[in-house]
């Protein structure tokens, strides 16, 4: 409930008048708009959370209310350790693990491959550099969604359905990270390469000892953006993973909904808690690394 606390704090800052300064009507109005905006973003989540603390029967009677019950533990156990499908393998824990594999695998893969390619394009005299550049950057133009079916066929032909490779690698086939690192490397002063060369550093040493440490902040920012992007993938995992033990939380959401409505007494508490668990890791990352994240987002221009 840290969001609710923060909301209360925000409200409190409004009500404490600053010493010696008259509060103008305009300022109150500004805060009012911001509070409304914050409520617009947060109230839905609080409602979803509230429903996980009360018995499902109560939800059917009254819907979301202001009452905080004691069912959270129970719902947590059901959500994390009880399977919702047929195979008995898609427990919350398993889905959470898959989500982490997808999020981290995607972010790391994209950053490593992107940095390597960007390094090759920016720092080497390459005859076909321009060609490589265009071949790579054309991929920025077409999102996976428009070529979803043929991509599925390719993965199927390679026998990569229901595997982590099949899930992650095709998502990496877009050059956002490469483009971003290219921009960044170009802004690194040229004297650095010259100095390194005079000191006798080869290209590998320069990359590992100078360029990578120099790009630390950028790598962090990229990681956050890419982790959230990978974690939140839906359409691609829906097509590629059909076996329940491969489901991620976000991919499993449709099934969670069906479980919610399928029973005689719909299991709202459990379903809502799974939805909240699917939200927590990316939100946590975004909030706690806010400044890096904002910097990465606004400077990379996606």
């Amino acid at each position: 409930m840290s969001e609710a606390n923060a909301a209360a704090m925000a409200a409190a800052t409004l009500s404490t008048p600053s010493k010696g300064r008259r509060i103008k009507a305009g300022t109150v109005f500004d805060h009012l708009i911001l509070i409304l905006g914050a409520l617009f973003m947060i109230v839905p989540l609080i409602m979803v959370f509230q429903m996980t603390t009360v018995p499902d029967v109560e939800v059917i009677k009254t819907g979301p209310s202001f009452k905080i019950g004691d069912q959270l533990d129970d719902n947590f156990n059901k959500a994390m350790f009880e399977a919702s499908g047929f195979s008995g393998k898609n427990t919350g824990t398993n889905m959470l693990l898959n989500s982490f594999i997808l999020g981290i695998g995607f972010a790391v893969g994209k950053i490593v491959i992107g940095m390597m390619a960007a390094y090759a394009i920016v720092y080497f005299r390459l005859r076909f550099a321009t060609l490589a550049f265009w071949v790579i950057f054309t991929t920025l133009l077409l999102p996976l969604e428009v070529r979803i079916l043929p991509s599925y066929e390719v993965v199927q032909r390679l026998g990569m359905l229901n595997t982590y490779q099949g899930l992650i690698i095709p998502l990496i086939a877009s050059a956002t990270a490469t483009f971003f690192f290219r921009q960044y490397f170009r802004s690194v002063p040229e004297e650095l390469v010259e100095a390194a060369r005079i000191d006798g550093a080869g290209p590998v040493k320069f990359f590992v000892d100078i360029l990578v440490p120099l790009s630390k902040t950028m790598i962090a920012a990229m990681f956050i953006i890419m982790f959230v992007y990978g974690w939140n993938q839906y359409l691609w995992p829906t097509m590629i993973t059909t076996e329940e033990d491969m489901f991620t939380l976000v991919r499993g959401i449709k099934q969670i909904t069906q479980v919610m409505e399928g029973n005689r007494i719909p299991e709202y508490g459990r379903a809502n808690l799974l939805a909240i668990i699917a939200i927590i890791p990316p939100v946590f990352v975004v909030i706690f690394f806010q400044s890096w994240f904002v910097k990465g987002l606004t400077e990379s221009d996606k």
Partner: protein
Amino acid sequence: MKRAGFATKWLPILLLVPQLTIIAVFFYWPAAHAVQSSFYLQDPFGFGSSFVGFDNYSDLMDNREYRRIAWFTVIFTVLVTFFSLAIALLLAVKADKVIRGAKSYRTLIMWVYAVAPPVAGFIGLILFNQSWGPLTRLIGQFGHQFTLGVNYTDTAFAMVLVSVWKQVPVNFIFFLSGLQSIPKSVREAALIDNRSASGRFWDVTFPLLAPTGFFLLIINITYALFDTFGVIDTLVKGEPGNNPMTLVYKVYVDGFRGNDLGGSSAQSVILMILVLALTVFQFRMLERRIHYT
């Protein structure tokens, strides 16, 4: 390329191989395949295919349902783009103005960025639950029986609302950083020249934010076209039926569920052309943006 680059021959090629391989296999191959199969009619039972030229395309153009979906996509995109930009701009201007609690507001508004679209759709299902959903009740107070997934307009409304909710934070982050990059001297000069706050906003702030706005316009259009897939799929619970859907959802429904490979590929190609046009437009805007700043 840097002037003082390395002259090693084999290393850069080695570095480029992973990226180029992945792109060749998972980008160029599928894209080429989509273009190719859009000119063929696939046998529904998998017994080969025959070349039909532009038939798949002209069939689409003649298809009333496809035209209706295209039209819905346009309206949906306009609504989502407009409202998420407008709300975000208002909030960003206010968040830039207040001194107290500015950081808390920023956090409270932007966290939704990290919520996956289908999870946003799930939250929408809760809010619009038929028997006890708080928004269903609220709308019921005004005498309208809201039925998500049954009534076309109601479902469309829920889709727009959830999509806007999900997109406001991104726009907010960009607008806020755009506002914060306006130099103090410019603001002070404006303060002297123009006494009314709204006058200052429209004459000074808004034009300075225009490049950010153009950029966000494209981002939002792409979002409404592609990333809302998860919102739509959860809100209709995977049962499109007579519910509104966007062009991307239609590609999925026809190709993956309906097994109409040729038609689905033709739709993919149409979308590709649309995105290409958008991107070219975006790049020209970005060029102009550099001159602005």
